[in-house]
């Protein structure tokens, strides 16, 4: 090589370029996500907890079934029970969401990322896209497996249901949607807070602590506040029985969407306004 050709400025940044940088960033983020062990672990753990804890809880019901009173039997939600592992699995997928960008802030590699793709909103959008896709697929695998195994166990007392029954398919996909939403909320919190431990603490506060606090409120405040929380929305989504104090599926999706979009919007503003 004898001479270096100085690059001419590329075509002015139009929508074509914007799409191009986004696609390139998605490919890059996918490589990043799949190439660290912690990702693989959090995905495996998410599935294992969803399935394992669900099976355990179903087995526990089967063991106690004969001692349950008729009202409890009537209220029993076979779908929701088999998916109850989500309460714990959400923490694993939420941590993955945090790590997707939190680890870049911790190591300082976010600066390498932004130097390669200076459109920071594009980077954040690409990370969120890859994360959402992975979380949804893994969530769906976990939920379908947990449902299947759970129903086999519950069939021991002939209380299992099938995917064709009312609201069942919606609940199983609802579980995957909820897990995806938690991952995205964790991601946005980490983008805003820029510290992994802080973002994990904030996420756990939202999905674990707020529901407990809202329960402590006097009626009817407890239900009114609970209805606005992502955890309540998630619970409504992955059960088939709409109890009066629980949101309808449509409302639940709206509540989740508002949380996801609002935190993501703050993340986008934060990432473009601050030095990195």
């Amino acid at each position, binding site marked *: 090589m004898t*001479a*270096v050709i100085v*690059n001419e400025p590329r075509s002015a940044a139009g929508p074509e370029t914007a799409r*191009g940088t986004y696609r390139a*960033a998605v490919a*890059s983020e996918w490589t990043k996500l799949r*190439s660290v062990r912690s990702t693989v672990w959090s995905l495996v753990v998410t599935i294992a907890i969803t399935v394992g804890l669900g099976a355990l809880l179903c087995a526990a019901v089967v063991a106690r079934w004969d001692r349950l009173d008729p009202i409890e039997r009537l209220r029993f939600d076979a779908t929701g029970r088999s998916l109850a592992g989500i309460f714990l699995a959400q923490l694993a997928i939420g941590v993955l969401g945090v790590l997707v960008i939190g680890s870049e802030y911790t190591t300082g590699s976010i600066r*390498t990322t932004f130097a390669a793709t*200076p459109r920071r909103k594009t980077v954040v959008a690409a990370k969120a896209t890859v994360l959402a896709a992975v979380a949804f697929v893994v969530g769906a695998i976990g939920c379908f497996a947990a449902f299947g195994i759970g129903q086999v166990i519950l069939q021991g007392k002939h209380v299992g249901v099938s995917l064709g029954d009312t609201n069942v398919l919606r609940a199983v996909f609802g579980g995957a949607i909820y897990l995806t939403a938690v991952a995205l909320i964790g991601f946005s919190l980490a983008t805003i807070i820029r510290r992994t431990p802080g973002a994990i603490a904030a996420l756990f506060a939202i999905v674990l602590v707020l529901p407990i606090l809202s329960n402590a409120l006097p009626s009817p405040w407890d239900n009114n506040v609970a209805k606005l929380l992502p955890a309540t929305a998630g619970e409504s989504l992955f059960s088939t029985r709409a109890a009066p104090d629980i949101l309808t599926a449509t409302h639940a999706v709206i509540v989740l969407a508002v949380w996801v979009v609002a935190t993501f919007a703050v993340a986008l503003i934060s990432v473009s306004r601050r030095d*990195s």
Partner: protein
Amino acid sequence: MIRAEGLTKRYGSTLAVDHLDFEIQPGVVTGFLGPNGAGKTTTMRMILGLDAPTAGTVTVNGRSYVDIPFPLHEVGALLEAKALHPSRSAYNHLLSLAQSNRISRQRVDVVIDMVGLADVAGRPVGKYSLGMGQRLGIAAALLGDPPILMFDEPVNGLDPEGILWIRNLLKSLALEGRTIFLSSHLMSEMAQTADELLVVGRGRLIAADSVANVVGSGQGTVRVETPHLDELAAILRARGATVTYVDNALEVHGLDARTVGDAAFENRIVVHELVRQRESLEDAYFRLTDASVDFHAAALPELAGDRR
């Protein structure tokens, strides 16, 4: 070309970069020199759009860095070599960067070979030594085959072998006609590689000139040996020189060798030795940065004025 105009960055009460104006010329190695805390890293971060200037602008080939969709083709930078996810392999790190700028996988293999990491490219970078991390950082900078390269303190903490490797690499990159912008707090490093110098202290530009001119800008001293030390010293002082006694000779500041010799001759003083002592690059650096660090040198504005 990189051009800064009134570039300023304030962090709270710290003025890290203070109205820098400079142009980094294409095809030469420009050394960015200044003591620790002078604002070199901050300046480079602003060039890369990582920090937003408090005031002023900086452009790369006429536009702001953040407006370049795939900037790795235009500027390759090494800022913090160890800012990596420790469990990702070097190959995947470079691949992710390549994909973000539409660079081929083949190019990833090429740069890995170029920096000599082929045998360890599959290993997690957390296990890399500082020198290997530095090589990986350079591989990343070279990914897009950019005409402009920017390195922040590339030899910091390296062993002699690593330093030599980087020096040779810089030389070969410069021979290919690339623009190289290289920071260091060590003058000796610059003496090895740079053609042009930007000297900064406390965020301000102290000098922007060729290495030769920066060195030549100091007057140096004249050493004169004579049996009549006091007599000659008085004569030279009368002509405005600063004279100090060194062993049994005089060291003269402020007059050149010819004037000293003429003065001795006119006063019939025997001279046994008359030596012009040129200022070393190191001396020039200390002279320049001392002024900015201590503000004791009333010559600061004068220095800056001289240099333009």
